[in-house]
């Protein structure tokens, strides 16, 4: 087992989060957006777990379970929305889902 420092872990977390965030901002496909969202959440999860280990405190790990549950729910709802979006528009391009503009 290789001993990894907290800095390395946080770097991984940051990298994944950036990939997710960047993807979220530039992708057009709704499914990709959901995936990017998932990436960002998981990046945060990594950070949680890392700090949990660093401080020898279990609450970070507990939070990880919360997040992963919420993420699952969110993906389920998100996919349902995407499905309905497809039914409505015959595509899942996110730019066209702008009915809530002011």
């Amino acid at each position, binding site marked *: 087992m290789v001993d990894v420092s907290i800095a390395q872990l946080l770097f991984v977390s940051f990298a994944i989060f950036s990939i997710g965030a960047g993807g979220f901002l530039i992708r057009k496909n709704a499914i990709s957006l959901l995936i990017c969202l998932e990436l960002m959440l998981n990046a945060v999860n990594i950070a949680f777990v890392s700090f949990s280990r660093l401080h020898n405190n279990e609450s970070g790990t507990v939070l990880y379970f919360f997040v992963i549950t919420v993420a699952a729910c969110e993906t389920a709802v998100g996919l349902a929305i995407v499905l309905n979006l497809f039914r409505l528009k015959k595509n899942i391009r996110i730019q066209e889902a702008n009915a*809530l503009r*002011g």
Partner: protein
Amino acid sequence: MDASLKILSGVAVILPLLGSCIWFWAKNKIGEKITGLAATGTLVISFICCLTLFWQIESSARVEFFSWIWMGSSELVNFSFLLDPLSLALGLIVTGVGSLIHLYATGYMHGDEGFGRFFSYLNLFIFAMLMLIWSDSMPGIFMGWEGVGLCSYLLISFWFSDEANATAGKKAFIVNRVGDFGFLVAMFCIFKAFGTLSIPEVLAIVNSGNLDIVQVGWTQWACLGLVLGAAGKSAQIPLYVWLPDAMAGPTPVSALIHAATMVTAGVYLCCRLQPLFFLNPGVMELIAYIGGLTALFAASIAIFQNDIKKVLAYSTISQLGYMFLAVGLAAPVAAYFHLMTHAFFKALLFLGAGSVIHGLHHEQDMRKMGGLRKQMPITFWTMTIGVLAIAGTPPFAGFFSKDEILHIVSGSHRGLLSNIAFVTAFMTAFYMGRLWIMTFFGKSRGHREAHESPWSMTAVLCVLAALSAFGGLLNWPELWGGNAWLEHYLGQVVTQMDVGHGADALEDSLKLAGFSSLMGLGALGLAWWKYRDYQTQDFRSPAFNLFKNKYYIDEFYDAVIVRNLKRSGEFLWKVVDQGILDGTLNGLAYQAKKTSERFRRLQNGLLQGYALWIWLGVLILMISAWSVR
């Protein structure tokens, strides 16, 4: 004693009011004849009440009914009457002449569809007039004052289907309201000065002489306000403009309201509050000059009028000017005397004119009359007496009253005023002669067959002619061996300036009387010479256009006051209200809307856009958190 006074005066006032409520609806139910006679009957009863009061009351009496305006503190205004020579004498005239004119109107208004309405208004007028002259408080007088104004309004616009009549009525009411404004302010000033509005109390304070300078100052404003009020009601300069237009009303109305009674209210008011005016000699002078100028001014217009009623209207203004002149020269008895005789002969003249108009089927233009002397003999003879009376020919009523005023003016050593008074007397005789000759002499000019009026009208003319002939007996001067009854009677409440008690007083007064009657006859002769065989010619010179057009006063008022008021109304509405006030607010609303319009664009519905904003926000937060540390 007191109870009987209460009942009598109450009945005299209330009956016409009740009547006015009844006749309005009654005509259709009980028919024209009964309505007319019943309306006249109520007035006759009122007259009898007045007469009884007149006999019963030695000098003066107060009759209290119930409290009216209770202002909260101790101040109270009652419905109560002050019955003294001033008010009783005028009360007799109002109800007496009023009854006669009611009788006349039953004939004149025969067949008019507003017959019941007419008598209703007429009775209401008598009620208001009695309130005016009998009330012992300023607000009570004001109630009558406005009440007669209302009746005048209703009666002028009696034939309201014609827009012109309605406009004339409106004009009368509004011009009167300008006067009423003066009256209101006068009331405020009197209350400020004396803390009461009851006339006996005010006069008691004034007569006691314990006034400080502040109170006198307030009375000056009060008097000015009262002069404005009196000028409005009595059609004096500058508020006389409504009276000529008021001739749009039925002729009995012109006779009763716009000649005999209502228009004299201003004179009455000045006499009633005489002590207050005595405190302010400047205001007295003002009244005298207003009166003198009005007399001359109106007489000069009257000469050029062709409408028979307009001539009489201007003549009324002119005669009222005489009364004001007398009031201003501290001769209220003379003013009152002229007021009474004027009530007789001017009512007679108006009713005579009405009879002519009635006979000619509502023709009022004198140029289309002529030669009526044969066709309407009674009207002719009674009118003749009226004309002689107003022209100041002895021994008719007008001679005595006018002579007294002339006597006082010439005794007052005001050269301008006495010249004006004499010139006006000459002009009066001239235009009355013109009216008389153009109507009754010469050849008939284009009117259809005329007929004499029914008995109800001619009988009234005869009674009034008798009064005009012998009315002078009321105040036969002591110098000429009379008993000057009116002077003694009114002397109980008003003070008359003394003129001519010197050694050659009798000689002077006879000279004056001779001169004035010769002048009157001369003017009549001049009129005879000028209009004897009048065809259609009148004065043609352009110089007379000014007189013919009544000095363009109406046009002047219209241009200066009415139009500017209209313009300011438009301005206040369109510019201030809609422009500035609403504009500011609508502008605010518009700006709010526009700003939100701008911010709205941020909400573009694109998910990624929002994410970008979140990202930026987090970034800013982080940077600021870091830099703060």
